[in-house]
């Protein structure tokens, strides 16, 4: 993490680390089954997605679903419903697999034929900071390119360190006060 703003909130500023804002932004791009797993429809759709390929079974393994083939068939035939713990695991497994499957598409959209994506960075909320401690920060927009593959891979594996390094790389493009954008209120883009 870059910057001298190590102690965010000391004077009342509110924000989140840039890497988190970046991850939230990528999260927003992922779409999938809308019905919750607790509904019949949502459960059936998730099971169908997870059992359609070998990677689906791997995802279930990763999520810690330990069941016999008999149980899985009973779930698919809607003879039995999973217990709440397994429902939560199925949901985790579904979104895990979904993220893996859309990652390529996200990279393509964000790289935009290596033209990159223009992002908007909203600075930390200083409304509760005493006037003399406030910094003059404004909303910045910046075209970001060349880092999206790394960012998506880090987001996929939950590698916060790489994501943080990526964010630092992004904000150095802002100029001399890049430092003030280590923590931000939000980050957004259209891709």
């Amino acid at each position, binding site marked *: 993490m870059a910057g001298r703003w190590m102690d965010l909130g000391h004077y009342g500023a509110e924000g989140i680390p840039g890497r988190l804002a970046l991850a939230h932004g990528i999260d927003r791009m992922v779409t999938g089954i809308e019905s919750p797993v607790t509904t019949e429809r949502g459960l059936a759709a998730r099971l169908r997605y997870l059992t359609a390929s070998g990677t689906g079974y791997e995802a279930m393994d990763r999520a810690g679903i330990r069941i016999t083939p008999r149980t899985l068939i009973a779930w698919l035939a809607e003879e039995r419903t999973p217990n709440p713990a397994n429902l939560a695991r199925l949901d985790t497994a579904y979104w895990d697999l979904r993220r893996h499957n859309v990652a390529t598409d996200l990279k393509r959209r964000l790289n935009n034929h290596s033209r990159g994506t223009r992002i908007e960075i909203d600075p930390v909320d200083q*409304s509760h900071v005493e006037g003399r401690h406030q910094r003059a920060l404004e*909303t910045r927009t910046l075209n970001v390119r060349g880092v999206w593959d790394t960012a998506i891979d880090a987001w996929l594996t939950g590698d916060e360190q790489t994501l943080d390094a990526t964010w630092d790389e992004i904000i150095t493009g802002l100029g001399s006060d890049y430092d003030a954008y280590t923590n931000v209120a939000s980050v957004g883009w259209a891709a």
Partner: protein
Amino acid sequence: MTDQPQGLFDAIDSLLQAVDDNTLLPAPAERIRLRKAAGLTEAAVAQALGVRVQSIQAWEAGRAEPKGQRLEAYRRLLDGLAHRYPAPDTPSAPTASTHPEATATPAPEAGPPGTADAANAATAPQSQQPPSDLTPPENAAPRPADSITVAPDLAAQTAWGPDGRALQGEPGPCIRCGAETAYRSTDGHPLHAGAMCQPLTPATTPPSAGTPAPAPKAAGTPTAPPSPAPVASPTPAPVPSRPQRRAKSAARAQAETSSLIHQAVHEELERADGDTEAALKALTKRAIPDVMAMFDETRATARYTYTAYPALPDILKKPSKREPDQIWEARPNFHHPGYSLKIPGSVQVTALDANAAYLSALKCWLPIGKLEHTPGTDGVGPKRSGVHLITPAPWHHPHLPDPLGDRDEPGALWVTDATLRLLLRLAGPKHGLADRPTVHESWTSGATENFLDALRKTLAAARETAIEQEDTITLEYVKAMYSKFVSTMGESIHNRDMVRPDWMHLIHSQAYANLWGKAYKAHQAGLDIIAMTGTDELHVTGDWRQVFPEGRGLAQMKIKHSDAKASGEYTVGTVAR
């Protein structure tokens, strides 16, 4: 207009002929052709006639025939359409007899002579239409000297084929604007389809030759320009009391922005080969990116940079895609308790419709930056906007709609600034209708009323022009642009250029507040409010025309026709106490 009596006689003759044949309406195929030529959907016709879409389909398929008033109305519609879109392959007997020179250039597709029904539909219009080779004398004088050899013919009409597509021929200079086009007019000259020419000069617009005069302007407008200015300009006419823009660049930028609409329609019409339905479909599809581009264009030299992706407070976050956030938009659903549709009675009610309610509501106070939290009433101010947690004062006027809409549960709620402004206004000395609401906390930001104003003006001007020229494609395109702009500016996968649910809520509730204002105006004029629902529906008793100007303009009201029982003009009974 020397052929007018002749045309009249011919029309009467054809009418008599039709009575003899016992078929007053054109053939089913012709009905479809006329509707498609005008770019009307079945639903639009059904709504206008107050019938179901299935009925229209049955009439057009020849499975059924309209009766009574519907028959009259449907015939009137078809006659009107036949005037504008005459059958291309019908020999125009009356025109030929009076103006032999007009037939010197035969129609490009001289097909077999039309059936009796087609002739019936086509003879009357062609006789009334001025012969295209003759330019109306009032147009001759002010025409600028330009290099176009063919005199711009403003009365010429596009030739439409039986399949609803514009007819094409060898490309040549358009007789109206001079640019090359493959489309044909009814008399075989090159002419851009659907009057889609690039304008020559802003002044040379047709002085509404055959079309009926537009709806009367609002009586209240202080400066009704006497000069003929049918094309609505986004820049208002100079008012002496108002300071004018010093830079010409602003006006030029506005003109450029409004030409984007024109260009898009032109482009899609060309691409669809004159198939209006396909063009409209394509235009609807591109409405969101187009309106966002236009919005960016209007922000070009703007003073503030808005935040497109602000950090949102939890009250504005949707728990899931299906569930709403916590903001109460105050959507009205009011029915007067003293009247009922179920009781037979003789109280005359008119269902009115506010035109383009969301377009008007683009003028509202919108927060610029991200919303900041303030406790108490600190966030309430004339130059701030956002959402507020309030406890409303009780509403004691059962004959007037509650400005907060139909609420089931009591207690505090989050409302937008537009609603709060209305509530505060009603608590003020001028109205004194209720007590002030208690504001507990707010999420607000510094606000401006002008964010979307340039966009609103551009779209409103395009809409007005489209209505005057009866250009359904542009009208529908503009409608798709502003309605989709408002509905997708929040969290939507269809529009990722902006995530401002607060703006969306503000514009919605501004529209409802505007409707409440209209209801109050009617109430003050002595009319009873029977119902106020949705975004734009207002049902009143009595003579509403004294209160609201009638028409399709933004400041006007029109009668709302729909499939519902309570639409158009209907009667209700008084509830016994």
